[in-house]
């Protein structure tokens, strides 16, 4: 049993910004898409680039279709005079994790974290096959929907869900997204035809372009910058084996382990923002994270309403934090995932000060 990891320093998300996520953004470069979001979080805190102690981003060269794609985004940040900066080739949630560890060392008191992804220029289903074992699996091009369908069928076979229940997840998500002006699919969306059985269009995420940014701050600095900071009480991430054949696709032990170490099970949460691009994955995560029916799950609409790859996980952390900022939540769980069928998972527990 992993013990709960108690951070040696109070660190909070103090600002969150995101784009309006869209099916296509042909007229915008990644930098042009990102810039307004960076300004949004800087304006919200009154900070300038030169005030930020550490900057970290998450993105993927494979989405951008070129090597070193993050360097252009850095130019947009305005890294002059030179800044202390790093990048993970992962979802921005992991960039936030790296920034959090940097703040824990005491070497910085504030951090800017951003992530972006444009899925529209290519076929994201095909692109994601390049994540798979390059010798034995990737040459077969099994796409992300097909792999998610395997997971959904395994759940149905295990009696954990059925197709009407999955449709319920889809319609609840998009109904909730009606209140989220940034979401791409909002309100009533038809469940549609099968894409890969048992998944229908409605069970799958939209193809999205988008960006997001957050600002982290430690201790009193967080209190200065935000009326009600979203304190990171714990954050952890775990990875599972890559091969689907050696995993129980109806469960997510890595999510459970991460949640345990983040302290998620010590007291109930009122909100959970889950990074579940496919309806069946919400079923898996609800079970692994022991979320009861009294927990508000994905009030933003989640990844089923907007799924800008590489930013969607960071957006879950941001959405959970924003709910704490505005007093709609006191203790929230935020989750991000990476890899096929929930291979890698990150869990954070965020809390607002008592009111």
């Amino acid at each position, binding site marked *: 049993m992993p013990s709960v990891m108690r951070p040696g320093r109070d660190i909070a998300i103090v600002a969150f910004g995101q784009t309006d996520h869209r099916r296509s953004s042909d007229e915008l470069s990644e930098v042009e898409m990102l810039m307004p979001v960076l300004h949004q979080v800087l304006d919200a805190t009154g900070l300038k680039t030169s005030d930020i102690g550490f900057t970290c981003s998450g993105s993927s060269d494979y989405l951008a279709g070129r090597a070193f794609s993050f360097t*252009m985004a850095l130019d947009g940040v305005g890294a002059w005079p030179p800044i202390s900066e790093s990048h993970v080739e992962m979802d921005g949630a992991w960039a936030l994790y790296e920034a959090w560890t940097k703040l824990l060392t005491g070497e910085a008191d504030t951090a800017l974290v951003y992530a972006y992804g444009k899925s529209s220029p290519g076929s994201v289903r095909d692109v994601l096959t390049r994540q798979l074992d*390059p*010798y034995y699996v990737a040459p077969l091009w099994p796409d992300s929907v097909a792999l998610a369908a395997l997971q959904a069928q395994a759940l149905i076979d295990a009696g954990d869900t059925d197709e009407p229940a999955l449709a319920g997840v889809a319609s609840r998500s998009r109904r909730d997204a009606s209140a989220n002006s940034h979401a791409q699919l909002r309100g009533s969306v038809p469940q549609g035809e099968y894409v890969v059985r048992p998944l229908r269009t409605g069970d799958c995420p939209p193809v999205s372009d988008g960006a997001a940014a957050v600002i982290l701050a430690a201790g009193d600095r967080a209190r200065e910058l935000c009326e009600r900071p979203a304190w990171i009480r714990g954050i952890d*991430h775990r990875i599972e084996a890559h091969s689907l054949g050696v995993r129980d696709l109806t469960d997510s032990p890595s999510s459970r382990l991460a949640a345990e170490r983040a302290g998620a099970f010590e007291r109930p949460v009122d909100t959970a923002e889950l990074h579940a691009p496919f309806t069946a994955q919400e079923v898996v995560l609800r079970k692994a994270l022991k979320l009861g029916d009294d927990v508000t799950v994905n009030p933003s609409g989640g990844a089923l309403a907007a799924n800008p790859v590489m930013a969607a996980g960071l957006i879950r952390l941001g959405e959970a934090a924003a709910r704490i900022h505005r007093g709609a939540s006191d203790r929230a769980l935020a989750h991000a995932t990476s*890899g096929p069928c929930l291979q890698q998972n990150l869990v954070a527990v965020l809390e607002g000060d008592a009111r």
Partner: protein
Amino acid sequence: MNKEPVAVVGIGQTKHVAARRDVSIAGLVREAAQRALADAELTWADIDAVVIGKAPDFFEGVMMPELYLADALGAVGKPMLRVHTAGSVGGSTALVATNLVAGRVHGTVLTLAFEKQSESNAMWGLSLPIPFQQPLLAGAGGFFAPHVRAYMRRTGAPDTVGSLVAYKDRRNALKNPYAHLHEQGITLEKVQASPMLWDPIRYSETCPSSDGACAMILTDRAGAARSPKPPAWMHGGAMRSEPTLFAGKDFVSPQAGKDCAADVYRQAGISDPRREIDAVEMYVPFSWYEPMWLENLGFADEGEGWKLTEAGVTELDGDLPVNMSGGVLSTNPIGASGMIRFAEAALQVRGQAGEHQIDGARRALGHAYGGGAQFFSMWLVGAEPPTT
């Protein structure tokens, strides 16, 4: 708040070569990791987290390879982070792993960087057409050659300095069993007679394309106390970035490099790097970058770096040895090259560098850079634990 001291207790490298056709990517990284574990006399079960780095995914054609490599690196059930900061990535990866220990998130961390360049074509990987941007199809040598020219013009350095560096590094590599290029019978004349690629950079003054991996085990004070071999202690580490292209950029001596070094020296309490640092592993992919970085890192005044090289100060028996291992000029698995610099610096202060060991090396600097000379990462390691 005070940080947990961080120690390097295990180091492992593969024998770097042009093509490791006998192993998969997973096989390559596992080999380096197992050697680091063996060096530390630890097992996979002792590792709390894995931090992996490499340069662009297009170099092997695998998107986010940490997913596929989780099993090979014993990471199943553990946290695994993937860093990518262009050519500086090997150094930054080690620093991200360092922060996990320094911030008391984990006790013992495996960090690893690799490149298996033979799986694909690096020139292709760097030359994909990009909408919205001017194409830059010159390759790295074509990008950096004008900056070398600018250095020569600015400092009046004679055009023989580059070949001295190459001759030294290739000779040093003969003493390093893991180095890629082992050019028996290398002479200064051979270097100077090699074909001109990007004037003034000759063929023998450029780095090779290598397959290789480098791994380190980082641990906290308690872990270091259990270490069977002397640990290397981290005394300072920093990263700095600046934009690729802008009117005020000094490509000869980028401000980000100066700031990064200054931060490391401040943390380590170093006021005179030339006297207080015993050995340097710096990222020199083209020979002329040795004199350039000697100035950028504060080992020589502006315009004076080439004089140290010319006087033999940076030779293995000089009083500021640089690239004892043979450096990037002899071994360049791009994503791993920065970590190899960091690891070789640690080997020196542990007294474990074998034939290329500098006697009595107590403090050593590891340096990496990348992108358009815009990303920098460095660490300074010592034989003694830090006092603050």
